[in-house]
C-alpha cells in the first residue's frame, strides 16, 4: 500500500488564531503545485563534541526544539493572494459582503505589534483506510510571499508562492474535517495593468515579466524564550515577531528608443507603482507601492528582444505607507 502525493489534503486556516498556541477552527482547502509535505521536525542535539567522554563519538542525545516550515507554490487566484497577503502583511480591513468582499491589506505598524496574525495548517493523506499523515500545525506565520507574472499562456503566467514557518506546535491526529476545495478564480497575466512612475507598461505593450515580494524576516530564534513552552520535551516557539521587513518589485520590459527607465534611475525620480490583475469584476488584486524609485536598470534580452530589467526601491510614504494590497474576492473573514 502507498499513497500518492496528490491525495494530500491541505487546509489553511481562514481566520486568525486568538493566540499562537490556540488552533484556528475554520479552514480553506487549496490545491498547490509543489510536492512538499510538511514534517513536524523534532531537533535533537548530542554530546559528540563535548570533552571528558574518552572519545569523539556520541554518548547521549538531548531534545532541543521543533522546526516546522513549508512552502506553497500556487497559480495565483484572488482567494489565495488575499489569504497570503492578509497573513503576510498582517493589518487587514474587510468590507462588503459575499460574493464581493473587499480587502485592504497593509503591513503591521511596528508601533502597534511585531506579531503577524497566526494561522493553522492542516495536512492529511489517507492511506490503506487510515491516515499516513494527519497533522495540524498550530501557530504558523508567513515568512514571505512573492507574486510573479510572466509572458506565456495559461495559469503559469500568474503565480503566488508563500513560505511559512510554524511555532512547532503539532496536533496529531488533527481532529479537523477539512472543507471542500475552495473554488479559486485564477487571474491570468493577460488581465494585468501596470503603471510605474507614470509609464503605462501594458498600454505600450512593453511589459514582459515581473515579481512583487514581501519578506518578513521573522525573528525565529527569539521565539524560543524562557517559558516559551515544550512539546514532548522539546522547545516550541511562544512568539514569532517580524524582523527587518523587505518589500521588493522587479520587472522586465522591452527597451525602446523612448524608454525612460535609465533617466528615471539617474534622476532617482519617485512615483507610484500599481499592478492590477483580475479574473473578473468580483475577483481582483491590486498591488501598490505608493512611492518607489529605481534601484537598478540592467539591460538584457528576452526571446531575442532587447529588454531592461528594473529593480525597484520601494520607499515609505508618510501617508500611504510602503506597500498595499487591495483585493476583491468571494470569501469573507480571511485573517480576521
Amino acid at each position, binding site marked *: 500500500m502507498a499513497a500518492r502525493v496528490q491525495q494530500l489534503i491541505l487546509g489553511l486556516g*481562514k481566520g486568525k488564531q486568538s493566540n499562537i*498556541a490556540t*488552533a484556528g*477552527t*475554520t*479552514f*480553506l*482547502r487549496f490545491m498547490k503545485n509543489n510536492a512538499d509535505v510538511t514534517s513536524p521536525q523534532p531537533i535533537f542535539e548530542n554530546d559528540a563534541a563535548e570533552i571528558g567522554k574518552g572519545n569523539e563519538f556520541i554518548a547521549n542525545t538531548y531534545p532541543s526544539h521543533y522546526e516546522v516550515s513549508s512552502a506553497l507554490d500556487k497559480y495565483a487566484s484572488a482567494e489565495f493572494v488575499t489569504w497570503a497577503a492578509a497573513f503576510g502583511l498582517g*493589518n*487587514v*480591513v*474587510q*468590507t*462588503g*459582503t*459575499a*460574493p*464581493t*468582499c*473587499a480587502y*485592504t491589506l*497593509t503591513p503591521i*505598524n511596528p*508601533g*502597534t*505589534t511585531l506579531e503577524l496574525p497566526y494561522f493553522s495548517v492542516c495536512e492529511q493523506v489517507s492511506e490503506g483506510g487510515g491516515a499516513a499523515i494527519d497533522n*495540524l500545525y*498550530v501557530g504558523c506565520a508567513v515568512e514571505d510571499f512573492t507574486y510573479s507574472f510572466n509572458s506565456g499562456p495559461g495559469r503559469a503566467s500568474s503565480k503566488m508562492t508563500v513560505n511559512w514557518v510554524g511555532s512547532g*506546535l*503539532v*496536533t496529531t491526529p*488533527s*481532529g*479537523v*474535517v*477539512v*472543507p*471542500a*476545495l*475552495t*473554488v479559486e478564480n485564477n487571474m491570468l497575466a493577460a488581465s494585468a495593468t501596470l503603471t510605474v512612475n507614470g509609464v503605462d507598461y501594458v498600454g505600450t505593450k512593453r511589459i514582459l515579466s515581473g515579481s512583487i515580494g514581501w519578506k518578513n524576516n521573522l525573528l525565529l530564534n527569539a521565539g524560543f524564550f524562557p517559558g516559551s*513552552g*515544550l*512539546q*514532548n*520535551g522539546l522547545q*516550541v516557539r511562544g512568539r514569532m515577531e517580524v524582523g527587518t521587513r523587505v518589500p521588493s518589485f522587479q520587472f522586465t520590459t522591452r527597451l525602446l528608443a523612448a524608454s525612460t527607465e535609465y533617466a528615471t534611475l539617474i534622476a532617482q525620480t519617485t512615483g507610484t507603482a500599481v499592478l492590477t490583475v483580475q479574473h473578473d469584476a468580483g475577483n*481582483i488584486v*491590486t498591488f501598490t507601492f505608493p512611492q518607489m524609485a529605481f534601484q537598478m536598470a540592467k539591460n538584457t534580452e528576452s526571446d531575442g528582444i532587447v529588454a531592461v530589467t528594473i529593480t525597484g526601491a520601494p520607499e515609505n510614504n508618510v*501617508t*500611504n*505607507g510602503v506597500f*498595499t494590497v*487591495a483585493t*476583491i474576492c*468571494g*470569501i*469573507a*473573514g480571511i485573517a*480576521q
Partner: protein
Amino acid sequence: MDDSKTVKKIRMRHPHTSDEVEVEATSEAVIPYMVKGYQQVLAESGPRPGDADGPAEEQVTLAEPEKD
C-alpha cells in the same frame, strides 16, 4: 476599490490610544489610518457579514497542544 454600495463606513481603532474613528469604507480612506496602526473594529459577537459564503466549513473542537 469602492464597495460603497454595500458598506458606507467602518470603524477603526488604535489599539494603544483607543482613539476610534469612522472612515469611509474604501482603500484610499482606510490606508492612511492603517499605516498609523489603526485596526478595523469587528463586531463583538455573531457572524460577520458574508461568513456563510464559499465552501462549507467545519467547526471542530481541537485538543490543547501538549505542554510539559
